[in-house]
């Protein structure tokens, strides 16, 4: 049974996305926050819980509180990489159910594109990686992809299928950064960076922000939007550096997924739409396996022939994902936002029919932390 039954997600929003040179990271956080609060019919005066983390600000909830003029009763700035924001949604829900706050604002913003194109990175250099020219993070993911191909026969074309499916979904999302058609050969033949990964196996580097508001199930009744409920949640980590990943072809999503399914009382076959943190194409293949959508090793054949693209057997990353929609450094919150919008049936051309249960999975570090959340438009039993 979900421990979050008394809580609802009542608003989601993005800031301006893509290339936003006239705003800084805090501006983007605040812009997304205002949009989310307006969507719910709330104002900043209603917010008493603040949640954020950042590669730009050392004390991000203080930055956000000061900027917006909010004096919170409760704050959390969990830092577990790109998955942090899925984690923060659950931490906020927990704070609300425990009475520590009533209206929780979760906000993110990053100008990593405008700042120079490199991934905003606060990672400390690692003595046992840096001297060998590890191109962080792509080479760590490349080591995983190479091992997956070796153990299971996963092919170059199967990696490309992930990026092509994302692009097809993005073509139906007016907010997506890349919408022009893409072929398997385009991906396979794009600039080779770290074998087997090419440039188009890598997520975008964009500016952008996002915000999400949670409150009590009771208070949600008086707000503008259909409330969305958290049925299940789980998180774990297997390593910090790729050197210490116990098994390169199995991520902590196996553990976080089991926890989330158990809390929700559902399994993979009950999920209507899946949002996975696709920092690199290989991620989607790994997470589909680890979250039980196919047996270990069969992720490559699972995604083949457009199976996760529009009209395929399982809708994955219906916003276009980090590969084609946006990726401002920490993508985690965007997986939850798309899950919420699908459950509210707001997705227009890309809307999934009869969408009742969504799964969002955040990834942090180099496949290091995994956070799984199961959402529904029906209140948990």
């Amino acid at each position, binding site marked *: 049974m979900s421990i979050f039954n008394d809580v609802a997600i009542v608003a989601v929003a993005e800031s301006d996305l893509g290339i936003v040179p006239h705003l800084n990271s805090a501006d983007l956080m605040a812009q997304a926050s205002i949009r989310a609060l307006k969507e719910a019919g709330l104002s900043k005066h209603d917010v008493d819980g603040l949640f954020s983390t950042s590669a730009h600000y050392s004390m991000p909830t203080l930055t956000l509180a000061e900027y917006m003029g909010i004096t919170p009763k409760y704050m959390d700035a969990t830092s577990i990489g790109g998955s942090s924001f899925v984690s923060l949604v659950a931490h906020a829900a927990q704070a609300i159910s425990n009475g520590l706050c009533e209206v929780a604002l979760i906000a993110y913003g990053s100008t990593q594109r405008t700042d120079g194109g*490199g991934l905003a990175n606060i990672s400390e*250099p690692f*003595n*046992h*990686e*840096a*001297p*060998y*020219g*590890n*191109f962080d993070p792509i*080479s760590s993911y*490349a*080591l*995983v992809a*190479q*091992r997956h191909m*070796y153990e299971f026969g996963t092919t170059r074309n199967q990696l490309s299928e992930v990026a092509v499916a994302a692009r097809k979904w993005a073509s139906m999302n007016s907010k997506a950064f890349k919408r022009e058609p893409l072929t398997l050969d385009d991906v396979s033949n794009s*600039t*080779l*960076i*770290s*074998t*087997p*990964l090419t440039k188009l196996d890598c997520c975008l580097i964009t500016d952008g922000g996002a915000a999400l508001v949670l409150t009590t199930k009771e208070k949600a009744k008086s707000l503008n939007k259909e409330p969305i409920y958290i049925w299940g949640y789980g998180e774990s980590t297997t390593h910090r550096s*790729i*050197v*210490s990943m*116990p098994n*390169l072809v199995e991520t902590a999503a196996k553990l976080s997924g089991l926890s989330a399914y158990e809390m929700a009382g559902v399994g993979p076959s009950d999920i209507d739409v899946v949002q996975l943190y696709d920092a690199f194409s290989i991620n989607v293949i790994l997470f589909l396996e680890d979250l039980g959508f196919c047996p270990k090793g069969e992720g490559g054949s699972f995604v083949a022939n457009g199976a996760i693209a529009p009209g395929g057997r399982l809708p994955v990353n219906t916003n276009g994902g980090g590969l084609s929609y946006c990726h401002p450094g920490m993508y985690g919150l965007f997986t939850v936002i798309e899950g919420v919008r699908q459950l509210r049936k707001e997705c227009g051309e890309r809307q999934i029919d009869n969408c009742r249960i969504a799964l969002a999975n955040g990834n942090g570090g180099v496949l290091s932390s995994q956070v799984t959340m199961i959402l529904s438009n029906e209140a948990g039993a």
Partner: protein
Amino acid sequence: MTYNKPLPNPKGISETYWKGLKEKKLLIQVCNHCQEQIFYPRILCPNCGDEDIEFKEHTGEGEIYSYTVLHKSIVKGFSEETPYTLALVKLDGGNAKMMTNIVGCSPDTVEIGMRVSVVFTDVTDEFTLPHFIPVGGQ
């Protein structure tokens, strides 16, 4: 010519490992309780939790667990040396893996499962790096 690639900044337990390299020894910790190989150096065994662990000289042999050939790189000193091979080598006798470069062979001859052995590359007066070459290789 000055060496312009990233160097380690060892502090604490790891200093023993880096000093060993300087003397052309690959010192890998082994747990006296569960026999687990431990890499990178720590003050306890991450497998069983025991603190009775010690540095032992390793043969420097193992096999390639995974690798990637960098055709583009933004790492200082490496960006002008592409293509180069970054690998995870699984050391014989346990589960420890270490990151390294495979040297002394063309990147396109590297394969997962290939047997490799350590070579000690003095990169500065202070630091020696453990690189690996194919066993019986060039």
